[in-house]
């Protein structure tokens, strides 16, 4: 098996744009008799009115509760009887959907997807059922130190920028959302233009695209208001070191996040920051951070770093779960590693290790249908081009030690970090 041939490229991805604006990508994989689909509409929780935060997520959870053609039970009976799955949820920028089925049931899944997107009915009884589920999930999350540290971190870092908003909403906003709000959001933002749909699995790509055409080509809607992101609040790191603690009682472990603004996905700094982040807190057993916090000092079970790069901005975060008595020690160790990261270049050995890691890892990420679908979706979302994964090796190999240092210095200022902890301070 040749590794290069296993990577998706222009010769084995079929990309077609339907006349109504829907982009379809399809790729065959006959190693199992199943297919994975995934896609999005370009309208996410960033469009929620401020006082109705959580609307897009709430609405997405209600989409499959009834359509003009089928009620809730009929929809799920079709899906579950055939051992398939279909889910809708919201992210900041999109309404996402994903599903799986045996290849023989793909047409059924596509029909349902189209129906759910075009003619949801949002039955009142189901809205109330899901409202109570969301309120409970918010209560559960309130007790999760890791999740709450993330919520506070985003809010404090991004402030009034939409990325600072809690996409899940608050109990108050969830209680205030009505069926009319859902219908309005659906009317204003759901439509074929900008929609992307990927299909990977045991079906010929031409056949897959034809099935999509049969199902979606008749969807025309000219009134969709695609979102504009002009005039958003600018994002910047705190003026000086900022420490915030969220007290959640009776917890044995404290979750800690230390970080700052990071690059957006299409930033020229992105690849270098991605490589640098791997050295900082991912490579091997969670990189330099894992070595110092976990291996050398035994302070945490998990300690590593993440680069969260989205369309408009991003964050660069180091996180760890520590005993409350080790909070200061762990923070000091992490900050000293961040200082080292911006003070001196990474070594050539570290850089080569990480390049080799990313190049070797890609075929593994693409080993199954769900992995390929995810990666195809990213090609379209960020306009990377069908040859991106074939060119990935060249792209990674071109990153230099200087590039990594420059990306690190552009974003990380050890004097202007945000430090968030969540848990029981004196636990």
């Amino acid at each position: 098996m040749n590794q290069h041939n296993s990577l998706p490229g222009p010769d084995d991805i079929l990309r077609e744009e339907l006349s109504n604006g829907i982009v379809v990508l399809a790729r065959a994989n006959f190693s199992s008799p199943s297919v994975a689909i995934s896609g999005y509409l370009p309208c996410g929780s960033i469009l929620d009115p401020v006082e109705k935060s959580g609307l897009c997520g709430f609405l997405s959870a209600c989409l499959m509760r009834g359509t003009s053609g089928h009620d809730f039970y009929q929809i799920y009976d079709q899906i579950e009887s055939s051992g398939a799955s279909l889910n809708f949820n919201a992210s900041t920028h999109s309404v996402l959907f994903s599903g799986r089925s045996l290849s023989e049931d793909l047409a059924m899944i596509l029909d349902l997807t189209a129906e759910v997107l075009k003619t949801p009915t949002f039955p009142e009884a189901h809205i109330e059922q899901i409202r109570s589920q969301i309120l409970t999930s918010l209560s559960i999350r309130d007790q999760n130190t890791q999740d709450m540290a993330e919520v506070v971190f985003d809010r404090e870092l991004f402030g009034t920028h939409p990325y600072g908003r809690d996409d899940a909403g608050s109990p108050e906003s969830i209680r205030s959302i009505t069926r009319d709000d859902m219908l309005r959001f659906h009317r204003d933002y759901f439509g074929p233009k900008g929609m992307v749909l990927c299909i990977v699995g045991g079906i010929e790509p031409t056949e897959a695209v034809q099935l999509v055409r049969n199902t979606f080509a008749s969807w025309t809607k000219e009134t969709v208001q695609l979102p504009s992101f002009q005039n958003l609040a600018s994002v910047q790191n705190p003026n000086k070191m900022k420490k915030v603690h969220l007290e959640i009682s009776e917890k044995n472990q404290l979750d800690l996040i230390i970080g700052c603004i990071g690059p957006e996905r299409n930033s020229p700094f992105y690849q270098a920051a991605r490589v640098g982040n791997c050295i900082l807190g991912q490579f091997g057993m969670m990189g330099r951070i894992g070595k110092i916090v976990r291996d050398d000092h035994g302070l945490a079970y998990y300690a590593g770093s993440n680069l969260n790069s989205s369309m408009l901005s991003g964050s660069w975060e180091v996180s760890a779960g520590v005993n409350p008595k080790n909070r200061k020690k762990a923070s000091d160790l992490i900050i000293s590693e961040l200082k080292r990261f911006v003070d001196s270049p990474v070594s050539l050995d570290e850089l080569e290790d990480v390049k080799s890691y990313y190049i070797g890892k890609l075929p593994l990420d693409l080993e199954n249908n769900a992995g390929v679908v995810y990666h195809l979706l990213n090609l379209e979302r960020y306009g990377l081009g069908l040859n991106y994964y074939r060119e990935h090796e060249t792209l990674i190999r071109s990153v230099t030690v200087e590039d990594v240092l420059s990306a690190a210095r552009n974003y990380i200022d050890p004097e202007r970090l945000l430090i968030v902890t969540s848990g029981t301070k004196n636990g």
Partner: protein
Amino acid sequence: MAEKFIKTVLDNGLKVMLKEIHSAPIITHWIWYRVGSRNEVPGLTGISHWVEHMQFKGTSKYPAGVLDKEISRDGGYWNAFTFFDWTAFFSTMPADKIWLPIDLEADRMQNSLYLKEEVDSERTVIISEREGSENEPMFRLEEKLAKAAFTSHPYGVEVIGEKADLLRISQDDLYRHYRSYYAPNNAVLAMAGDFDAEQMLDHLNKVYQNIPAREIPDRLIEPEGLIQEEKSVEISGPGDVTYLNIVWRAPQGSNKDFFSLIILDSILTGPHSLNMFGGGSIPNKTSRLYRSLVESQIAVAFSGDYIASIDPFLFTISVIMNPDHAIEEALGVIDSEIQRIKDGDIQESELQRAAKQARALFAYGCDNITNQGYWLGYSEMFDSYEWFENFIPSLEKVSKEDVIRFANQYLGKNRRVIGVYKPSSPETSKSAGGLTYEPA
């Protein structure tokens, strides 16, 4: 290309399973040891899991900090799991890089160092892992339930072990445990992926030929039968969500009744995937409990759970309550749904549907090579690979009568433990939200 499968035992007792899959240039390598918390005694609980951690702390050939870099450098990923019955280490690599994990797994089967300073540092890491779990109400409830559901069997203790034991276990204890159980005749080596099985077997023979078999401790572990009387446990803690868990004894994975449980659970709580990697899931919106628990708004969510284990473990139904409803309402619904099954209210179409769902989940898991390697070894831990190969036919053989008999035999009201997690007080339920800005 024909995809070969080899199952054999080397001279030193190492069982080898090799499955060619040529769909991607990837190979997964697994080594499974027949040791887990099931083999532990009071005072040394958690030692198998700790030994698993220590196996990443180096040998003379591959010192600590080198192993993980070696694997990552080649783009691979690796990890390890400790369970009640087994400890498994896996690496999934680009096909041309598989030689490294083969060599290092053989090396650390007998040459791990267990240095004092590494033992001390890992003690606090594992305690931190436990403390992270203790933050979760469900972990606390499950720990208490397992203790009540077993009188003396080691399944009654969480794999991570008791905190007091984690503070006490010594370097000598760990090394002794390692030397007692990490031997070729107590292991299964499983590989799946893009290789030639005959050539791979030759290579493995060379790598493992000098590792001798060893005598493995043979402690009698008495399986426990059905729970003898209804019990209940209750804990309280922060938050404002109430959780209800009900457990019954479940048959072991090799028992024919295990397949009846899979069908029953699918009808009652929805299909359940046993895949560890990939595979996804199927929703449970048309399951009986969804309709009677969630649509009625008594609960906001629920799930069914069981595992394939050597000895009988537990079948669990977990419920997240709607705050406006009482535990007794959920319990009443679950009792009446189980009674329906006991009374024979099952349609043939429900059985067929459960079998199709299982077939779909099975197909989803097959497009993941790591998952295929997992099944090669996992099925050998509690039965044999034939169990996995015959999984779908075995499910299709389950009759309506089998499911009814199962419900009557296993799911008695006097054969269960009911566990409840309740919010401790209105004050603590408001505990989240106290935000403070601190001086830098």
